[in-house]
């Protein structure tokens, strides 16, 4: 009676969803590379290196936002430590990139420059195998996963939830940041990793490499969205949202919320790790400030702006906030924090469902207006009013549920 996973996958996304996936893939893997490589720079449709790097970066952020949404929007658990998992993935892959520099560093040593600077004679044990690409990818997933699992196990087991959990995750990433700031930790201290040269032997600045990284980012985002879709549509997803809405009821009908929370928490962290691993070669630097408290909270606002509890919302949110950021920081750097601060305030006060919720509301209103016009003489039958107010009431309830 079990449906093959492939059929479930197809059914889970629906024809419209698959069409969107196909179009995105076509644009990312065919049109963008063509526009970048074939068209001259003066051409209006030319996609610049800057644009590719920026969009690639935002795609990585979008993956983090979706991962955050899985745990916050659907699980009702607000993590203020997702920046840590992202950075851990970045550091794991960054180790590989540092090793790929080879002897081309300023000290012409086999060791990364910062180790020579510290007068270290050999690689610390945890750098073992860091010159293998696959091992680096494995670490980028496994390290955030294991840390999230251990932390989550203890936190969820003792039923730390709500704001307590948020604060503790914040402390976690804060502690990690302090730890990575130390030079003795062996990850380049304050400066982190930078000056990368190659990836799998290919120059990291070559347009082809950048396009491949860009394409991989798109693939990761699509994969994350599909995975999210499948998870949410499964019974697991239903239990997860049930835990968000009424955890004690879930326990009294025999589910152990610990394992459900732990699963989605770990998956979310691993996705962040992968996103971090793709982010570092595109941006060319990773340092402990990625683990700062502010960075992690910003992830939450991407999700909130886009609309939590929807899968596509966080993608929009990450794009809107980060595009604004890059515009503000070049045009009005001193007003960026005002904008971001007000965004936090206004979205939580007036846009609990984010832009996706706003869009849904607007289209619903249009449909309603059309329906009202159709039967202009009947002044809204009681049944209609009933369903209408119910529909309006539910999203507000959803917001509450997610925050409880």
């Amino acid at each position: 009676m079990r449906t093959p996973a492939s059929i479930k996958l197809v059914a889970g996304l629906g024809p419209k969803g698959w069409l969107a996936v196909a179009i995105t893939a076509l644009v990312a893997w065919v049109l963008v590379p063509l526009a970048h490589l074939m068209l001259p720079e003066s051409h209006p449709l030319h996609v610049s290196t800057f644009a590719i790097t920026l969009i690639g970066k935002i795609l990585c952020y979008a993956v983090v936002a979706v991962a955050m949404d899985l745990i916050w929007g659907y699980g009702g658990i607000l993590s203020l430590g997702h920046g840590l998992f992202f950075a851990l993935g970045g550091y794991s892959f960054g180790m590989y990139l540092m090793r790929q520099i080879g002897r081309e560093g300023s000290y012409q040593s086999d060791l990364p420059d910062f180790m020579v600077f510290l007068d270290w004679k050999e690689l610390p044990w945890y750098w073992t195998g860091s010159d293998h690409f696959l091992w680096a990818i494995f670490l980028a997933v496994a390290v955030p996963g294991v840390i999230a699992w251990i932390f989550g196990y203890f936190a969820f087991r003792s039923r730390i939830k709500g704001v307590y959990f948020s604060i503790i995750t914040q402390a976690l990433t804060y502690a990690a940041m302090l730890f990575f700031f130390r030079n003795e930790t062996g990850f380049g201290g304050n400066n982190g990793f930078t000056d990368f040269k190659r990836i799998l032997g290919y120059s990291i600045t070559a347009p082809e490499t950048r396009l491949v990284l860009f394409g991989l980012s798109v693939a990761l985002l699509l994969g994350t969205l599909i995975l999210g879709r499948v998870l949410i549509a499964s019974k697991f997803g239903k239990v997860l949202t049930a835990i968000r809405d009424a955890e004690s009821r879930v326990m009294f009908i025999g589910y152990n919320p610990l394992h459900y929370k732990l699963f989605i928490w770990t998956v979310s962290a691993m996705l962040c790790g992968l996103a971090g691993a793709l982010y570092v070669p595109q941006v060319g630097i990773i340092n402990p400030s990625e683990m700062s408290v502010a960075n992690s909270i910003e992830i939450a606002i991407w999700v909130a702006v886009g609309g939590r509890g929807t899968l596509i919302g966080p993608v929009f949110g990450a794009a809107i906030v980060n595009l604004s950021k890059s515009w503000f920081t070049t045009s009005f750097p001193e007003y960026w924090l005002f904008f971001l601060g007000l965004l936090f305030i206004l979205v939580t006060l007036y846009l609990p469902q984010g832009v996706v919720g706003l869009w849904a509301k607007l289209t619903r209103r249009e449909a309603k207006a059309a329906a009202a016009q159709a039967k202009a003489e009947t002044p809204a039958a009681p049944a209609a009013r009933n369903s209408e107010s119910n529909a309006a009431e539910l999203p507000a309830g959803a917001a509450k549920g997610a925050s409880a």
Partner: protein
Amino acid sequence: MRRFLLSLGLVLGLCATGARADLDPAALKGLASDDFDAKQAAITGLAATGDADAERVLKALADDALAVAGGRVVITAGGQVLDAASGAAIKPAPANPESIGLNNALRQQVDGALAALRLFSADRAERLAAAKLLLADMGDGAALLPILDKAVKAEADGEIKTILAQLHAQARLTSPDAAVRLAAVQTLGESASPAVKALLLPLIEKQGDAYLETDDKVRYAAQTAIKSIEGRLAWSETAGQIFTGVSLGSILLLAALGLAITYGVMGVINMAHGELLMIGAYSAYAMQTLFRASFPDFVDYYLVAAVPVAFFVAALVGMAMERTVIRHLYGRPLETLLATWGLSLVLIQAARLLFGAQNVEVANPVWMSGGVQIAENLSLPWNRLVIVAFSGFVLLLVWLMMNKTRLGMFVRAVTQNRPMAGCVGVPTARIDTLAFGIGSGIAGLGGVALSQIANVGPDMGTGYIVDSFMVVVLGGVGQLAGAVWAALGLGVVSKFLEGWAGAVIAKILVLVFIIIFIQKRPQGLFALKGRFVEN
């Protein structure tokens, strides 16, 4: 060295007989000599007289006012030229006095000699100061021994005598006579000074195969003496660490007390709490600027004025925050968290635009600088003492407000059962605003305290927000007593860990400890148990 001691003894013998007379011009001549040794001997000789005239001459020497003119040593003071031996003015003033120079080694010796001379001063305070000065840096012990011999005998004051006895013992350590050294070691064993310990250490060290100290008895005595000094040192070191821990804890307490009201009692997560601290600190800065410009005579009291100003400014900002944002988010803690984070960003940027992105300088008033010396290696700085006292005072105020006033009763009523409080006529909305304002005002007070020991800048608040939340989480929601114990405990524990593992690791360990602690007691130290906890 031998020669030097000999000459010293000679001079001592001389001055014992020729007391109260003018200084020996021949001895003074030595000062003018080009020979280093002769100069040195002359200085020591002068010092050993214990005479006021000698002091005058040495002071002049230290001030580069001693000169040679017309074959005798003179002191040039203002337009006058005085005879060094008698102190009488020479008229007419001889032409072209040739100044007597000092090199560094000699200058040090002059300073030491001056200190030694002051041991005979009539003023008790001056004698004490001189003794302490020598205790801190005795220089050449052997040279001082004769003076100390004399001084110990002459001294009547108990406190000074103790110090002198120690100095004396210290000087006697260099004696060639083992019995003298043994006695000296035994006397030194009663001290509690790291300097004395350092002095004794060479006695038990080996050079090559042989011990530096050849006499076994002296060596064993030295070993016991070092042990007992270490015991005393450990005590005061621990006391010092506890004090710095308590002072760190009292700062955490000030940062967390406001939070204990807004979060602990009202359940509002205020991520902009750190920025309220920052506002308090900038209020102190503003008051300092105002006092410097308008009331320069009272500049030392700007801090007193800053306390109420910081309270009201922070309270007003807090109330505005409550009215405009937080009020609409009651019962939605995660949204409150995000919105108040937004507020904190806006406040940080506003501070940057108003005061600049750089840290500003807030000075300690004069009455807060310096410290109280408790033991040889333990001094409690006034600014920290004042902060500890201040946080105790604020704690008392908060306790009184919450437990003894009508407002406090209303706040507790509203937090326990909002609808019921509303029903019996408590203006819940106004109480919320007021309570939030008070919590914010207390954060402002914390900011004033912080401005005295930490950098004041737009970002200063962000560093404290994690710590303050840890205090509240550890202490348990809604519990003032919990917050107090958690703050002091965290302060002391992290100071001890810092001494043991360094600041960063200490911080990480504390965070890990809190995470583990919450495993065991999810509701904090002082948890309320019962059915209503989870609702």
